[in-house]
């Protein structure tokens, strides 16, 4: 399918920069500067807003009042619980499936990748409606508790988790590893624990972080099914105390950016090593909640 060929000569061109493609320096700095300003100003504005007291005084009350409320901690805890549950379910589903597909059905790898993208076709609001209409008769233990959120988040985050894990599995020489392990007499359990999973650590980590970040930030499904998760609480705060909501948003943004930055950097390094042309595909990137 995809030829993983190191791109010979590409480096040389990159260093020189090419004459036809060269954009004027002022233009280059202008556009990048403008974009940078657009991305930095909301962060600075949020910081200012959250520290602004009455009559332009400096105050940290937005932060202290928030941490003092029970709801802050209980909703955060709920979201973390849902996130961990979703990550566990996702990995339990992905590890056997992706390894199986790559080992036994390599000619269907693209088909399964396409299947994993199907959740993008159904907007999360529509899925919520479908869950309400089709599963209203399920036992209350599932439909009436946040369990249903975790079950649906596995599906909604699948376009990102599947591709991340699949690309990690692909970069392994799966067949050789499995055959070597089996010829040394290890069963599947041992193979997974001592050979495959340790080699797939970064893929597992990437899929887990993306899934967790999705769960922590997801608003549509949770609010429409009337569960007060962290983002739902955030919107409730925003209706009465704007500066607290801004403070909370700033914290939430920073806390999702840090782990995301870590995996972006890890995967950028891996991709450089592999230099696969198949990076043309855009859906690797965006998680919209």
């Amino acid at each position, binding site marked *: 399918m995809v030829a993983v060929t190191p791109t010979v000569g590409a480096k040389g061109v990159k260093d020189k920069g090419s004459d036809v493609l060269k954009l004027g320096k002022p233009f280059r700095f202008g556009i990048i500067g403008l974009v940078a300003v657009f991305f930095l100003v909301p962060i600075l504005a949020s910081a200012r807003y959250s520290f602004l007291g009455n009559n332009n005084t400096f105050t940290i009350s937005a932060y202290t009042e928030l941490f003092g409320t029970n709801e802050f901690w209980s909703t955060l805890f709920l979201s973390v619980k849902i996130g961990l549950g979703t990550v566990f379910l996702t990995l339990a589903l992905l590890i056997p499936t992706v390894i199986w597909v790559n080992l036994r059905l390599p000619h269907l790898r693209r088909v399964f990748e396409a299947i994993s993208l199907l959740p993008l076709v159904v907007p999360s609001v529509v899925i919520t409606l479908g869950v309400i209409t089709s599963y209203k008769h399920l036992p209350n233990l599932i439909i009436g508790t946040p369990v249903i959120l975790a079950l649906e988040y596995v599906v909604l985050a699948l376009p990102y988790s599947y591709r991340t894990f699949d690309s990690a599995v692909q970069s392994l020489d799966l067949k050789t590893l499995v055959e070597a392990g089996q010829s040394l007499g290890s069963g599947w359990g041992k193979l997974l624990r001592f050979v495959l999973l340790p080699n797939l650590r970064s893929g597992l980590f990437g899929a887990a972080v993306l899934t967790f970040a999705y769960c922590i930030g997801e608003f549509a499904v949770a609010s429409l099914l009337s569960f007060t998760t962290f983002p739902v609480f955030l919107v409730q705060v925003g209706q009465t105390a704007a500066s607290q909501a801004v403070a909370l948003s700033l914290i939430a943004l920073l806390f999702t950016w840090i782990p995301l930055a870590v995996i972006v950097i890890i995967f950028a390094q891996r991709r450089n090593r592999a230099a696969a042309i198949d990076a*043309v595909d855009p859906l690797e*990137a965006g998680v919209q909640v």
Partner: protein
Amino acid sequence: MSTVLSPTSDQGTGGNGVVVASSGSSRRRPRRGRWHNSIGTVPFLVYLALFLGVPAISVIVTAFVNGSGHPTLSNFNEAVHGVYLQSFVASLKLSFGAAIISTVVGLLAALAVCSSSNRILRAIVTAGSGVFANTGGVPLAFSFVATVGNFGLITKLLSDAGFNPYNHGFSLYSVLGLTIVYQYFLIPLMILIMIPPIDALRKEWVDASSSLGATRTQFWRWVGIPLLLPPILAAFIVLFTDSFAAYATAEALTSGTIPLVPIQLGSLISGNVLAGQTNLGDALGAGMIFIVVVAGGLYIYVQRKASRWLR
């Protein structure tokens, strides 16, 4: 995570054969090997069928029946009139506008990054885009309240300079406001999408055309634009669907007052249903699925064209 789940141990679980037959089909394999080879993917496919297939199909089916279960098209009739028609128009406007702006800005930024030989700049932009493209939802809404909301930083600076945008028809809580907010995740996504095709462009064709003595205009007219057009169109479709389906940011900013399809659907789900509108929500949902499927079809078509050149 040392989950001790082995592919072979899954053989017992969820043995629903129907799913395998429909999706795991491979024409290249002999018939007997088929079943045996696909069995490990059954749990995954059953899971998707249960939590994606069943809800999606139930929405589409329900859209075609009335409250007492008889087939009808009246739900769709309702969905393309009055406030619901307006919301489809507003949603399409928002998604088109937001996608066009981010396509242009993101493309220029990607070109600027690719033509720079500064590796650090490139690394920062790529990593930053990867992070910002995943930023969305509620926190994004509030950080823009702090920026261009009624009491936001930019609003204040502009009013101090004698131009309060809110006195000149601007509002953050409108389609225009949302168009600006959505740029925060759309532009980085565009940059991420466009860097690989631009890089591929420079490798062979740029060298070939410069050694043949092409000027910059000639290069763009005959080589650059024709080559980049398919990936740009594909990216545009991704950005379009991304903003079309987005719910959280708009809901958090406008508390459900702006007429957009996802928002209207959300308020129908939350129970603001008038008499005689029982399955109207399903018709809106089916309409959204239809638009996304059309966009997806276009995407696949354009992506095929693009990949023919980039392989």
